Protein backbone atom coordinates (compact mmCIF):
# COMPACT_ATOMS: atom_id res chain seq x y z
CA UNK A 1 0.00 0.00 0.00
CA UNK A 2 1.50 3.38 -0.95
CA UNK A 3 2.52 5.58 1.93
CA UNK A 4 0.14 8.48 2.54
CA UNK A 5 2.03 10.18 5.35
CA UNK A 6 5.72 9.61 5.98
CA UNK A 7 6.63 8.36 9.45
CA UNK A 8 9.99 9.97 10.22
CA UNK A 9 10.56 7.51 13.05
CA UNK A 10 10.09 4.41 10.90
CA UNK A 11 13.82 3.65 10.80
CA UNK A 12 14.73 5.36 14.09
CA UNK A 13 11.88 4.83 16.57
CA UNK A 14 13.97 5.66 19.64
CA UNK A 15 14.27 9.27 18.53
CA UNK A 16 10.51 9.85 18.74
CA UNK A 17 10.29 11.22 22.27
CA UNK A 18 13.34 13.43 21.81
CA UNK A 19 12.12 14.96 18.56
CA UNK A 20 8.54 15.46 19.65
CA UNK A 21 9.78 17.33 22.73
CA UNK A 22 11.30 20.01 20.54
CA UNK A 23 9.65 23.38 20.30
CA UNK A 24 7.56 24.10 17.19
CA UNK A 25 8.36 27.25 15.26
CA UNK A 26 5.53 29.52 14.16
CA UNK A 27 4.34 28.50 10.66
CA UNK A 28 3.03 32.02 10.17
CA UNK A 29 6.66 33.19 10.20
CA UNK A 30 8.02 30.71 7.66
CA UNK A 31 10.16 32.62 5.16
CA UNK A 32 9.10 32.58 1.52
CA UNK A 33 10.88 33.45 -1.68
CA UNK A 34 8.83 32.61 -4.77
CA UNK A 35 10.52 31.03 -7.75
CA UNK A 36 10.37 33.83 -10.27
CA UNK A 37 11.14 31.96 -13.48
CA UNK A 38 10.84 28.46 -14.86
CA UNK A 39 13.29 25.92 -13.45
CA UNK A 40 14.58 25.44 -16.98
CA UNK A 41 15.97 28.98 -16.76
CA UNK A 42 17.34 28.70 -13.21
CA UNK A 43 20.86 28.10 -12.02
CA UNK A 44 20.63 25.70 -9.09
CA UNK A 45 23.00 24.31 -6.50
CA UNK A 46 22.96 21.38 -4.11
CA UNK A 47 23.50 21.40 -0.34
CA UNK A 48 24.15 18.19 1.56
CA UNK A 49 24.36 17.53 5.29
CA UNK A 50 26.52 14.43 4.77
CA UNK A 51 29.82 16.00 5.85
CA UNK A 52 31.19 15.95 2.29
CA UNK A 53 34.55 17.57 1.63
CA UNK A 54 36.94 17.49 -1.28
CA UNK A 55 39.89 15.20 -0.66
CA UNK A 56 42.81 17.41 0.28
CA UNK A 57 40.48 19.98 1.83
CA UNK A 58 40.14 20.30 5.59
CA UNK A 59 37.97 17.62 7.22
CA UNK A 60 35.11 18.52 9.51
CA UNK A 61 36.29 18.74 13.13
CA UNK A 62 35.52 15.27 14.42
CA UNK A 63 38.28 15.36 17.01
CA UNK A 64 36.38 17.98 18.96
CA UNK A 65 33.10 16.09 18.58
CA UNK A 66 34.80 12.99 19.96
CA UNK A 67 35.93 15.01 22.97
CA UNK A 68 32.60 16.84 23.33
CA UNK A 69 29.77 14.67 22.05
CA UNK A 70 27.20 17.43 22.34
CA UNK A 71 29.14 19.64 19.91
CA UNK A 72 29.17 19.42 16.12
CA UNK A 73 31.24 21.27 13.53
CA UNK A 74 29.04 24.14 12.28
CA UNK A 75 31.19 25.08 9.28
CA UNK A 76 30.66 24.26 5.61
CA UNK A 77 32.71 23.01 2.69
CA UNK A 78 32.51 24.10 -0.92
CA UNK A 79 32.73 21.37 -3.54
CA UNK A 80 33.28 22.10 -7.24
CA UNK A 81 30.67 20.61 -9.54
CA UNK A 82 33.51 18.98 -11.41
CA UNK A 83 34.49 16.85 -8.39
CA UNK A 84 33.76 13.23 -9.16
CA UNK A 85 32.38 10.41 -7.07
CA UNK A 86 35.78 9.55 -5.58
CA UNK A 87 37.19 13.08 -5.39
CA UNK A 88 35.36 13.75 -2.11
CA UNK A 89 34.98 12.11 1.30
CA UNK A 90 31.58 11.40 2.87
CA UNK A 91 32.19 11.73 6.57
CA UNK A 92 29.10 12.02 8.79
CA UNK A 93 29.67 10.18 12.11
CA UNK A 94 25.96 9.56 12.75
CA UNK A 95 24.94 7.94 9.48
CA UNK A 96 26.44 5.11 7.45
CA UNK A 97 27.96 6.95 4.50
CA UNK A 98 29.36 3.81 2.86
CA UNK A 99 26.42 3.74 0.45
CA UNK A 100 27.26 7.26 -0.71
CA UNK A 101 30.86 6.17 -1.17
CA UNK A 102 29.55 3.55 -3.61
CA UNK A 103 27.00 5.77 -5.35
CA UNK A 104 26.75 9.41 -4.26
CA UNK A 105 23.33 9.74 -5.88
CA UNK A 106 21.70 7.87 -2.99
CA UNK A 107 21.81 11.19 -1.17
CA UNK A 108 23.95 13.62 -3.21
CA UNK A 109 22.51 13.60 -6.71
CA UNK A 110 25.23 15.44 -8.60
CA UNK A 111 25.07 13.07 -11.57
CA UNK A 112 21.29 13.39 -11.78
CA UNK A 113 21.48 17.20 -11.83
CA UNK A 114 24.20 17.11 -14.49
CA UNK A 115 21.73 15.10 -16.58
CA UNK A 116 18.97 17.60 -15.75
CA UNK A 117 21.29 20.32 -17.07
CA UNK A 118 21.97 18.44 -20.31
CA UNK A 119 18.25 17.81 -20.77
CA UNK A 120 17.37 21.45 -20.13
CA UNK A 121 15.24 20.60 -17.11
CA UNK A 122 17.33 23.11 -15.15
CA UNK A 123 19.12 26.11 -16.61
CA UNK A 124 22.47 25.12 -15.12
CA UNK A 125 24.09 23.46 -12.16
CA UNK A 126 26.19 26.03 -10.32
CA UNK A 127 29.96 25.93 -10.28
CA UNK A 128 29.97 25.37 -6.51
CA UNK A 129 28.05 22.82 -4.44
CA UNK A 130 27.97 22.80 -0.64
CA UNK A 131 28.03 20.49 2.36
CA UNK A 132 27.65 20.91 6.05
CA UNK A 133 27.89 18.15 8.65
CA UNK A 134 24.35 17.70 9.86
CA UNK A 135 24.90 17.05 13.55
CA UNK A 136 25.03 20.59 14.93
CA UNK A 137 23.33 20.99 18.32
CA UNK A 138 25.21 24.32 18.62
CA UNK A 139 23.28 25.74 15.71
CA UNK A 140 23.80 29.46 16.22
CA UNK A 141 27.07 29.68 14.29
CA UNK A 142 25.46 27.65 11.51
CA UNK A 143 22.58 30.11 11.25
CA UNK A 144 24.49 33.31 11.88
CA UNK A 145 27.79 32.65 10.14
CA UNK A 146 27.84 29.58 7.91
CA UNK A 147 24.51 30.03 6.14
CA UNK A 148 25.23 33.69 5.22
CA UNK A 149 28.62 32.66 3.82
CA UNK A 150 27.00 30.02 1.62
CA UNK A 151 24.27 32.43 0.50
CA UNK A 152 26.85 35.10 -0.34
CA UNK A 153 28.72 32.65 -2.58
CA UNK A 154 25.48 31.42 -4.18
CA UNK A 155 24.46 34.98 -5.00
CA UNK A 156 27.90 35.72 -6.44
CA UNK A 157 27.46 32.74 -8.76
CA UNK A 158 23.93 33.79 -9.76
CA UNK A 159 22.18 30.85 -8.11
CA UNK A 160 18.37 31.01 -8.21
CA UNK A 161 17.53 27.97 -6.08
CA UNK A 162 19.22 25.43 -3.79
CA UNK A 163 18.15 21.84 -3.30
CA UNK A 164 18.94 20.68 0.23
CA UNK A 165 19.57 16.99 0.81
CA UNK A 166 19.59 16.13 4.53
CA UNK A 167 21.36 12.86 5.06
Amino acid at each position, binding site marked *: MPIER*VDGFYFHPTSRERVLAQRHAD*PAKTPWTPLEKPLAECKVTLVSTAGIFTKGDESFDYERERREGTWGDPTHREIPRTAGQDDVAYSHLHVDTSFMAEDRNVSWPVDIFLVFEREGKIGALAETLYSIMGYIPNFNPLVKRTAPLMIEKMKAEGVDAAFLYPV
Partner: protein
Amino acid sequence: MPETTERVCVPRAVFVQYPFGRQLGLVGDYAGQRRICEDMAALLEEAQAPNAYRHLPYEWPEPPETTKWRPDMPPPIFAIRQAKEDGHNLLDDYKDEERAAYSDAER
Protein backbone atom coordinates in the same frame (compact mmCIF):
# COMPACT_ATOMS: atom_id res chain seq x y z
CA MET B 1 11.75 13.59 8.83
CA PRO B 2 8.47 15.53 8.62
CA GLU B 3 8.28 15.72 12.41
CA THR B 4 11.51 17.72 12.50
CA THR B 5 11.19 19.63 9.26
CA GLU B 6 7.70 20.89 10.01
CA ARG B 7 8.89 21.97 13.45
CA VAL B 8 11.48 24.30 12.02
CA CYS B 9 9.09 25.53 9.33
CA VAL B 10 11.13 25.30 6.16
CA PRO B 11 9.34 26.88 3.18
CA ARG B 12 9.13 23.73 1.01
CA ALA B 13 9.93 20.07 1.66
CA VAL B 14 9.36 16.66 0.15
CA PHE B 15 9.24 13.71 2.54
CA VAL B 16 10.08 10.11 1.75
CA GLN B 17 10.10 7.14 4.11
CA TYR B 18 13.61 6.01 3.23
CA PRO B 19 16.50 5.41 5.65
CA PHE B 20 19.08 8.00 6.66
CA GLY B 21 21.95 8.11 4.21
CA ARG B 22 19.90 6.80 1.29
CA GLN B 23 17.03 9.30 1.03
CA LEU B 24 16.96 8.98 -2.74
CA GLY B 25 17.07 5.21 -2.99
CA LEU B 26 19.22 2.14 -3.31
CA VAL B 27 22.76 2.15 -4.67
CA GLY B 28 22.56 2.04 -8.46
CA ASP B 29 18.81 2.73 -8.66
CA TYR B 30 19.14 5.71 -10.98
CA ALA B 31 15.47 5.72 -11.99
CA GLY B 32 14.28 5.72 -8.38
CA GLN B 33 16.80 8.38 -7.32
CA ARG B 34 15.86 10.58 -10.25
CA ARG B 35 12.15 10.20 -9.54
CA ILE B 36 12.57 11.82 -6.11
CA CYS B 37 14.72 14.63 -7.53
CA GLU B 38 11.94 15.27 -10.05
CA ASP B 39 9.39 15.33 -7.22
CA MET B 40 11.51 17.97 -5.48
CA ALA B 41 11.82 20.00 -8.66
CA ALA B 42 8.05 19.81 -9.20
CA LEU B 43 7.35 21.11 -5.71
CA LEU B 44 9.78 23.98 -6.23
CA GLU B 45 7.93 25.01 -9.38
CA GLU B 46 4.40 24.40 -8.15
CA ALA B 47 4.37 25.60 -4.52
CA GLN B 48 2.60 28.92 -4.16
CA ALA B 49 2.95 29.56 -0.43
CA PRO B 50 5.20 28.63 2.52
CA ASN B 51 4.86 25.39 4.51
CA ALA B 52 4.44 23.49 1.23
CA TYR B 53 5.01 19.84 2.15
CA ARG B 54 4.52 16.69 0.09
CA HIS B 55 4.65 13.09 1.32
CA LEU B 56 5.90 10.71 -1.35
CA PRO B 57 4.26 7.27 -1.63
CA TYR B 58 7.38 5.21 -2.27
CA GLU B 59 8.15 2.25 -0.02
CA TRP B 60 11.62 1.09 0.99
CA PRO B 61 12.13 -2.53 -0.08
CA GLU B 62 13.61 -3.76 3.22
CA PRO B 63 12.00 -3.88 6.68
CA PRO B 64 13.30 -1.27 9.11
CA GLU B 65 14.78 -3.89 11.43
CA THR B 66 17.23 -5.06 8.78
CA THR B 67 17.85 -1.77 7.01
CA LYS B 68 21.37 -0.53 7.63
CA TRP B 69 21.75 3.18 8.22
CA ARG B 70 23.75 3.44 11.43
CA PRO B 71 27.54 3.66 11.14
CA ASP B 72 29.56 0.71 12.39
CA MET B 73 31.01 2.90 15.15
CA PRO B 74 28.33 4.73 17.18
CA PRO B 75 28.67 8.53 17.29
CA PRO B 76 30.04 10.10 20.49
CA ILE B 77 26.59 11.27 21.60
CA PHE B 78 25.42 7.65 21.74
CA ALA B 79 27.57 6.80 24.77
CA ILE B 80 26.60 10.05 26.49
CA ARG B 81 22.93 9.25 25.99
CA GLN B 82 23.34 5.73 27.32
CA ALA B 83 25.08 7.03 30.41
CA LYS B 84 22.23 9.41 31.10
CA GLU B 85 19.18 7.26 30.70
CA ASP B 86 17.92 8.62 33.99
CA GLY B 87 15.78 11.20 32.26
CA HIS B 88 18.53 13.78 32.24
CA ASN B 89 17.84 16.30 29.52
CA LEU B 90 20.79 16.30 27.17
CA LEU B 91 19.74 19.68 25.85
CA ASP B 92 21.14 21.03 29.10
CA ASP B 93 24.58 19.81 28.04
CA TYR B 94 24.56 21.20 24.53
CA LYS B 95 27.43 23.58 24.25
CA ASP B 96 26.16 26.72 22.71
CA GLU B 97 28.92 28.98 23.83
CA GLU B 98 28.85 30.57 20.39
CA ARG B 99 25.31 31.81 20.99
CA ALA B 100 26.49 35.13 22.39
CA ALA B 101 29.22 35.48 19.80
CA TYR B 102 26.71 35.18 16.98
CA SER B 103 23.76 36.92 18.54
CA ASP B 104 21.51 39.12 16.44
CA ALA B 105 22.82 42.14 18.32
CA GLU B 106 26.28 41.61 16.90
CA ARG B 107 25.27 41.12 13.31
